[in-house]
């Protein structure tokens, strides 16, 4: 068997083992003793709360995923709708960041003067936790929806900007010479030589950005509330529905993986071998 087949079997074995340990460890201890008076008063509930077993999570997942887009009021929407809201915010903030980061990255990368002038701002703004912007955003924008999008914008702009500038400034001098000996204008040079040359680096920045944006949206939605998968997690926590919390955690992971895979595929397309 090749390594691929072996790895799949090993993965499945690890999965089954982990789920098995989880399932066993959270089972209610069998007790033959009759319920105490206190327990009777509490409706048979235990004092010590337990994490739901994976079997419950799977059952919930099956029922939720069979109808992911139901909408039964503000506090009861399907996971598909919640993920949709989150994706919308992430993509809106991400696209806005792209609109600014890519052209600005080109300018910084092509001009050492602009690089030196703008770099200090990037260095100061980049390490700020995107959520630290939230109060300011809420105050200035006065709209929680737009503030969440702004937070995504501000967190996804930096990797794109830095990688674009880096990729553009590191295009091989030979290729730029080819452009100049063919009398290409600056714009044509940027589009036909620098862009394809720097595309793998730029897309790598975009891949990092989408990952961060998806991390941040959950926290942002916990703050702004209303809709989105982050709000959903927090709401189910308030409902003490741990099964739904675990289910939504898994869905967050799944969607994050899909977003990453899309960017990875894009990188593969533009990658070239020297």
């Amino acid at each position: 068997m090749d390594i691929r087949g072996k790895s799949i079997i090993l993965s499945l074995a690890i999965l089954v083992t982990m789920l098995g340990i989880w399932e066993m460890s959270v089972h209610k201890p069998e007790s033959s003793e009759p319920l105490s008076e206190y327990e009777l008063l509490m409706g048979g509930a235990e004092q010590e709360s337990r994490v739901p077993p994976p079997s419950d999570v799977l059952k919930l997942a099956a029922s939720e995923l069979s109808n992911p887009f139901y909408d039964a009021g503000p506090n009861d929407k399907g996971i598909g709708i919640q993920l949709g809201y989150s994706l919308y915010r992430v993509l809106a903030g991400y696209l806005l960041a792209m609109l600014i980061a890519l052209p600005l990255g080109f300018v910084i990368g092509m001009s050492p003067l602009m690089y030196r002038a703008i770099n200090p701002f990037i260095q100061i703004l980049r390490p700020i936790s995107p959520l630290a912007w939230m109060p300011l955003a809420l105050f200035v924008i006065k709209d929680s929806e737009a503030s969440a999008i702004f937070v995504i914008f501000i967190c996804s702009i930096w990797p794109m900007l830095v990688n674009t500038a880096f990729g553009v400034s590191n295009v091989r001098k030979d290729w730029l010479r080819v452009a100049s000996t063919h009398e290409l204008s600056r714009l044509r040079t940027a589009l036909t030589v620098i862009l394809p040359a720097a595309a793998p680096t730029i897309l790598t920045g975009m891949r990092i950005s989408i990952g961060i944006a998806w991390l941040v949206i959950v926290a942002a939605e916990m703050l702004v509330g209303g809709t989105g998968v982050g709000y959903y997690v927090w709401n189910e926590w308030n409902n003490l529905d741990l099964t739904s919390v675990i289910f939504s955690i898994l869905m967050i992971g799944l969607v994050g993986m899909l977003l990453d895979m899309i960017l990875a595929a894009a990188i593969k397309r533009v990658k070239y071998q020297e």
Partner: protein
Amino acid sequence: MKNSFVQVQNLAKRFPIANEEELTVFENANFAIEKGEFVCITGHSGCGKSTILNALAGLDEPTQGCVIMDGKEVVGPSLERGIVFQNYSLLPWLTVMDNVKFGVRARWPNWSKEQIESQCHKFIDMVGLNGTELRKPSELSGGMRQRVSIARAFATQPKLLLLDEPFGALDALTRGNIQDELINIWNETKQTIFMITHDVDEAILMADRVLLMSNGPRARVAESVVVDIARPRKRAEIIDAPEYYKIRNYLVNFLVNRSKELSGSSPSLNEEPLTVNPGVETRPMPETKAIA
């Protein structure tokens, strides 16, 4: 010189060095290239050959002097001057066809798609690469890559073609084949060519004239050696030409002995290199140590 196609006038390159006088790589380089001429330049590393070529290309600004081509001063890179670099400089994300198209499209932006394609095919065929149009440079051998680079340069039909050691990175067999191809293309197109080479045999095989540079710093374009061997030349036959070894010995002798002796003695303003024709001259040649 006055009405030559290309005129290099008092070209000099100097670099500032900290706490010292500037370093003069070469100065007062004067020479001319006629239309349709194939001129090679050779000399040891560091004498400034590449700087001269870059100045001709408009890629590098000389410290002093100027280059005039077709009556106009060279001030920057232009499609009138095609360049083939030693490291091919192909765009790795484009196919062979698209690399050649890159040049043709830049040269004739108003051409139709068909015109561009037929021009590209013509030159891809000329370098013997038909069938590889859709491959990427990374899927080609070094020799094939250099062929693409040559096709790209010739396809734009520049007035002057500059070759910067085009065969330097290739093995001897491949080099021989591409040299033959280059001569064939040159016979067809009668392009004016200026080429840097370190290979004496290559220079004799291809050039009408070989410019010899003394060692740097303070190098000079010392001599212009006429290669008077009848064309078409073939690699296998050229060694039978009576002039061949005379010219070869002269060049080798210069590179081995005299380039060192001449180093450090700058020519005066407007001084042109001495023209010699070792193939016909009967005067005794300077002592020669190496005859390979």
